[in-house]
Every structure is written in C-alpha cells, then in structure tokens.
C-alpha cells in the first residue's frame, strides 16, 4: 500500500492557487533580496535600451574628428572614442543590441526547439531518432564553438548572429522539450485525454504544451545571460554585431585596440556586460527555482 506521497511534477503549480500568475511572479521577484536587486537592474537596463534615444546624450554614431579620445567630462560622461563618438551614448545603444540579442535568440530558440522537442517526444519513431541524434550531436558542441562555426558560414552581422545563437540554443530547448514531453505524455491526464478520444493536435495544444512551458521558460531566462555573453564574445572575435553599430562586445574589441586612446569604453562595456549577465543569471536562477524545481538548484 502506498499513501499519497509528495508527487513531483515539473509543472507550474502555484503554491497559492488564488494568487495564480501574479503570485508566481511575486515569488520569483521578491523571494530574495539579491533577486529583487537583479530585477531592478534588469528593468533599468531594459528601460535604458527601450528609451535609448531619449536617454543618450548624443547620437552613438555621430563622429567628431576634432574631439577624439577625450577624457570623461561633463559633456561626455565617459569621454569619447577614436572617432570622437560619445562612449556613454554608445554604451546605451549597445544595451539595445545586447538586450535584443539576449531576449530574441533564446525566444526564437525556445519556439523552434520546443516544436522539435514536442515532435520528437510525442510522436517518437523515426522523427525522434533523427531529431535526437542531431540534437545530441549539436549539444556536444559548446555554444560558442558552434556559433563560431556557423558564423563562419553565414558571415557576421546582427541578424546573422541572432540566427547563429538561435541555432546554437535550439538543441538545448529541443532536449528539454523532448524530455518534458516524454514525461507529460506518460501523465495520466494525457492518457485520460487519449482514452476519451481527444484528437492529437488538441492534446498537444491543451495538455502537453502548457505543461512543458515552465521548464522551457526557466531555461529561457537562464539563457538570456548566455546569449548576451555569446554575442559579446562573437562581436569580440569580429563576427558579431558589425561596426559602426555599437554592441558591448565590439565596444570592448574596438576599445582594446584604442586602449591607450581611452580606457573608458572597455571599462564601461565590461561592467555593463558583467552587470547585466549577473542580473539575468540571478533572475534566471530565481525563475528556475520557482518554475522548475526539478532541474537541480
């Protein structure tokens, strides 16, 4: 005989059902002081990115040959670079690129990866074997390496790199989605639906998808940080965002080349990357702890 023990489902079950989504959000954001601070930082960055044109004192591309490599001053808070462009403004616009990157790639990867994972997990068979094989293969490659190789094919540039990072992230999502689908597929409520004659698309949309989203969302938030870091690394290697568009990675790259002209771009962009990655990591951890306690701590 077994009495009901605490069954563990990797699904979103609000502790306080009345609170619903809001409650979950509250638990994520205000569970820890550090998370709250991280959230504040993320909000700050998002606002900065969204309202970059209003906040940035200058056009980030606007050059001024007579004002190159200036020290920080009241006019240029972080000085100017080798083209006389305002470093502070470039950092602000860089936030835009980095954040669009950080948010868009995991999102796209989550969508495609989930589709693949559900297909593999729910239908099994040849599709599963094929998808799993390729996913395993790609997963064996570190994202950065994969990204470098794909970028070599596609060439650099903002949208290409979004595609690159998306492709590099898809296997991870596909794997999680597949595992979750396999688990959910075994859940009695899915079997119940099948035995009641509910059609497959309805089962996928109504029963499977909503119940695998939590770990996917958790993974997505964690990978925002990775995407930002990857973009920086690729831009640093010269295959990411292309100049003159600022991204933190290529600000560091250009900044290093102009290290003795002005150290402020690398100091600023370095701190910005570290800060925003740190914040997203903290936030991602919190989201995972709440949404998907099953995948470790």
């Amino acid at each position, binding site marked *: 005989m077994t009495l009901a023990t605490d069954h563990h489902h990797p699904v979103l079950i609000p502790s306080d059902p009345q609170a619903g989504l809001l409650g979950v959000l509250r638990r994520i954001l205000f569970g820890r002081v550090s998370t709250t601070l991280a959230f504040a930082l993320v909000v700050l960055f998002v606002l900065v990115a969204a309202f970059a044109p209003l906040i940035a004192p200058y056009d980030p591309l606007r050059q001024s040959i007579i004002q190159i490599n200036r020290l920080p001053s009241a006019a240029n808070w972080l000085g100017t670079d080798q083209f006389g462009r305002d470093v502070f403004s470039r950092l602000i616009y860089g936030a835009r690129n980095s954040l669009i990157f950080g948010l868009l790639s995991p999102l796209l990867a989550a969508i495609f990866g989930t589709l693949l994972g559900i297909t593999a997990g729910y239908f099994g068979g040849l599709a599963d074997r094929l998808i799993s094989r390729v996913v395993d293969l790609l997963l064996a490659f570190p*994202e950065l390496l994969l990204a470098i190789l794909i970028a070599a*094919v596609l*060439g650099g540039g903002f949208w290409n790199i979004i595609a690159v990072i998306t492709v590099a992230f898809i296997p991870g999502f596909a794997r999680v989605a597949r595992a979750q689908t396999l688990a959910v597929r075994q859940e009695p409520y899915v079997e119940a639906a099948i035995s009641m004659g509910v059609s497959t698309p309805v089962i996928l949309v109504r029963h499977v998808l909503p119940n695998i989203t939590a770990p996917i969302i958790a993974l997505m938030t964690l990978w925002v940080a990775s995407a930002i*870091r990857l973009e920086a690394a690729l831009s640093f290697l010269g295959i990411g965002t292309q100049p003159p568009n600022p991204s933190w990675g290529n600000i560091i790259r250009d900044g290093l080349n102009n290290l003795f002209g002005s150290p402020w771009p*690398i100091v600023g962009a370095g701190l910005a990357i570290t800060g925003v990655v740190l914040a997203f990591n903290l936030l991602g951890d919190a989201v995972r702890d709440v949404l998907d306690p099953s995948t470790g701590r």
Partner: protein
Amino acid sequence: MTRYILTRLLDAIPTVLLVLALVFLAMRILPGDPAIAALGELATPEQLASFRERMGLNEPLWMQFITFVWGVLTLDFGSSLLNNRPVLDLILYNLPYTIELTVAAMLLGTVVGIPLGVLAATHRDRWPDSGVRGFSLIGYAVPDFYLGALLLIAFSLNLGWFPINGGGEGFLDRLHHLVLPAVTLAMVKAAFIGRLTRGSLLEVLSRDYVRTARAKGARENRVIYRHGLRNALLPIATGLGLSTLATLSGSVAIELVFNRPGIGKLLISAIAERDYAVIQGGVVVFALFVVLINLLMDLVYVFIDPRVRVS
C-alpha cells in the same frame, strides 16, 4: 566493459562522419574566394584558374568530399591554401598549446572550484556560502576575454611579471607564458565548478542514504566525503566534461587576447582568410575533441557509477 567501450567507439563513427559532412558543406558555401585570398587582388585570371586547378577547387563536390574524408582518415588534411604548409603540421604545432592551456585551466579551476563548492555546501546559507555564490556569479558573468585583457594589462604591461606574446619555447618559458591565460580561464572555470559542486553536493546531501550514514553514527567528514562528495562526483564529472569543451572554445578568444599559438587562433585566422584546408582541419580537430571528451566522460561514468557498468 570492453564491449561497452567498443559500442561507444562504434557509436562515435557516424557522429564524426556527420560532423565531417557538415564541416565540408559549410566550407563550400562560405562567401569569398580562396583563390583571390591566396594570390592577392592583382592576380590574373590565368593564375586564379591554375590555382583552383591545383587545389582541386574545380572538382565536383562529392569528389572533393571523398578526397576530404580520405584525407582525414589518412591524417592528410592537405596544405594551407595560403602558405602551402601541411595542415597537419600546423595542427600538430598548435595543438599542444591549446591542450596545455585547456588542461592547466581545468586543473586550476577544479582544484579551486571543488573545495569552494564543498565549503559552500557545508556552510549553506552562511557567509562562506554567500561568498562562494557571489564569486561564482561574478565569475559566470565576466566575459573571459575581458578578464584576460585586464589581467594582461595589469600583470604583464604594468607589473611586467608575465610575458605578453606567444606561447614560449622550452618547458619553463612555456609555463611562464601559460600562467596568465590559464588563470583567466580557470577563474571562470572555478566559478562554474564551484557552483556545480555546491549544487550537486547539496542535492546528494539531501538524499536518503546520507541520512542512513548519519543514522550509522558517522562523523560529518565521513558523511560529506565518503557519502556526499563521492556521489556528487557523477554530476560534477559530466559538468567537467562540458566545461572542458567550453574551455576549449573559450580558449579561442584567450589565444587571441594573449596572442598565443593554438588551434583556436589558427581557426579564427583561417576563417578570416578563407583558408579552407586549415578551417577544415581545425574544425575536425575540435569535433574530434568533442567526440573524444564525450567518450571519456562516458568511460569515467562507467568507472565511478556501478549502475552503468551492468547495463
């Protein structure tokens, strides 16, 4: 056991072939003309044609692929399109530098990371834990190339303690050249491994058999090392495998920052210069690394986990 290893080896073959096919195809659709890259902008059409002829760039694609795979099997990766050096030589020269960097970084990272993780897990929610968590979060967030550049400026340029360029010749000189890049990568590794160790150990310490060990009257040290850490080694080993591969790819940027020889730098240069043969060679090396390390991890698993041994 041997059977298992054999099966895993067999299993790796299609993987390697798939990788080779992908690499090969990827190279063929790269923009840019390798002939122009090799001969320069002023080269005449005849020269370009004869170059393409010589390098087999005019053969049908499948022919080139067969030549390529055969080359890989016989360790003949062709010669650099740019300076005619055999790619194998280039790889053999660069590989040790990448390996020594990766190994040094992993060793350093592990030696620092695991104790940190244990410290954090055994002092959960107290200040050592917060300290380690803070360290690993920051280590996680700082881009390695950034850290590398800062260390380079601080310790090589300003203090003059370490050399600035190259990989060094001779044991001591190489070691001297290795310190800063290895420390850079190791800081990031230590953060990762510390965090991983903490997580796995906490997870293991909440297991029932740890409670059993306590019920036996075991001392805390015995509980943590014999029953905790040993079992936590499984996830840690997997993590280390992944981390080794990540270090390998992280070394690409580090080799650039420190201007060290290495497969990463070789590859990035080759990509920039469209040196097909070298790109292919470099990617094959990385791919083999990936397969090899995954294989190694599987074997380590078999070694430490009796449960895998039977199945």
